[in-house]
């Protein structure tokens, strides 16, 4: 049986590697409290509260090297970044993907600047209730 193959129809150099058309996810996400950390190599990482608690308490073990020192930079409510994403949706329609991406990256930097110095650490998430909120096991009440 002859096998039909389309490999000759398209010039391989025209094969797109990125999505041909990216669009914005219009689902509205809620702002979330975010915690920023600086790693030894200078890179900035951020995490939501549950995971930030693990990083803050240095629970992550790294074998093969000294335990990496991670500096807590601060935390914020995530509203600045949330607004940046909303703006990026408008920018995407007007100026395209790259401009929208740039606005999001800028939003991340702005959020970091707001968070810097707000040394509100993540809550202790070792014991949580059904709603993923931390609880005090001695009182069974919310912390």
């Amino acid at each position, binding site marked *: 049986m002859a*096998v*039909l*193959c*389309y*490999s000759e*129809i*398209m010039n391989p150099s025209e*094969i*797109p*590697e*990125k*999505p*041909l*058309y*990216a*669009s*914005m*996810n219009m689902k509205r*996400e809620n702002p*979330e409290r*975010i915690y920023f*950390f600086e*790693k030894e*190599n200078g*890179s900035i*990482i*951020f*995490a*939501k509260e*549950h*995971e930030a608690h*693990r*990083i803050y308490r240095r*629970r*992550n*073990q*790294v*074998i*093969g*090297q000294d335990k*990496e020192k*991670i500096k807590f930079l601060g935390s914020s409510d*995530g509203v600045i*970044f949330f607004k940046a*994403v909303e703006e*990026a*949706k408008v920018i995407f329609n007007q100026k395209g*993907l790259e401009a*929208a*991406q*740039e606005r*999001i*990256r800028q939003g*991340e930097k702005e*959020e970091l600047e707001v968070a810097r110095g707000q040394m509100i650490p993540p809550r202790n998430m070792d014991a949580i209730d059904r709603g993923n909120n931390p609880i005090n096991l001695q009182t069974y009440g919310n912390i």
Partner: protein
Amino acid sequence: MFVVTTDPFTASDLAAVISETWTTIVNEKTFNDTVLANFVTDLSSFAVEGSDIFHVPDLFTNALTVSTQSTQGAEITTASPAEVDTTLTINTHQYVAFIIGDKDLVQIASKYDVNEMYAREARNLLAEALEQAIAGLWSSISTNAIGDTATVLSDAEIRQGIYSLENGKYRLSESAFFFHPYTYWNQLHSVTKYYQQYSVGPADSRGPVSTGNFGSEGYALNYKGVLYGIPVYTTSNIVSGLQTYRNLLLHKSAFGFAVQNRGGARIRVQAENAIRNLGMLTVCDIKYGVAVLREPAAVLLNSSNAFLGS
């Protein structure tokens, strides 16, 4: 001649005799299949006989070197690279506990084994907790971090990740992708190269649009086929933050974990009739530690959920 009725029975009039039936079907909570703990290095067998700290000698940080014998007959130079003593500590003990009072337990319809159903849910919750802890190791990846908060994951980034592993001399045959379902469905499946017939193969080959995955016919255990010869798994336990998913490409030696439980099972489920509380107490628990064993053997593939590929 018709008889005109002006006051027929309504359902509310008959409420006292209309019965209700509790079906045997129960909609239980759904969970991810375990994929990360089934793939990365499992040190649990060493924990069976006790101990809290597990040493894994590291010979790769300081490796042997090749010397050249430039003068025939000359004395050779031997190498003695210092080994690095590395450890994994089992430092996390998590549990889910619930109690159902004797009166309620007796009165619950006999068709429902409530205790068993909640025990199953608790066990799955703890299995996901271990998965989340392993996925949470992304924050220790520095060497191979690709993409950022504004990245729409592309084929170029996928290949860049694969290159990083191979360049580090890690066997690709022992590696796997772990994507968040958002990244997998909304971004990867929009990469034209992945679904066009020229890459799928002969016209009678079933591609991703037909099967939903890359070269696999089913979704068992969240396995989604192979991408560039590397198995692909999906799990929503992949970490997110600031609308960014922390997808992973891992060699199996990159991350490790150890689970320690009396009896050997990963998750222990115990139930007892608690006289003091007049109820049935059920407790599920797990003791584990997770660690990055070889940091360069992991690739972090960031992707923003602000974008859809189409």
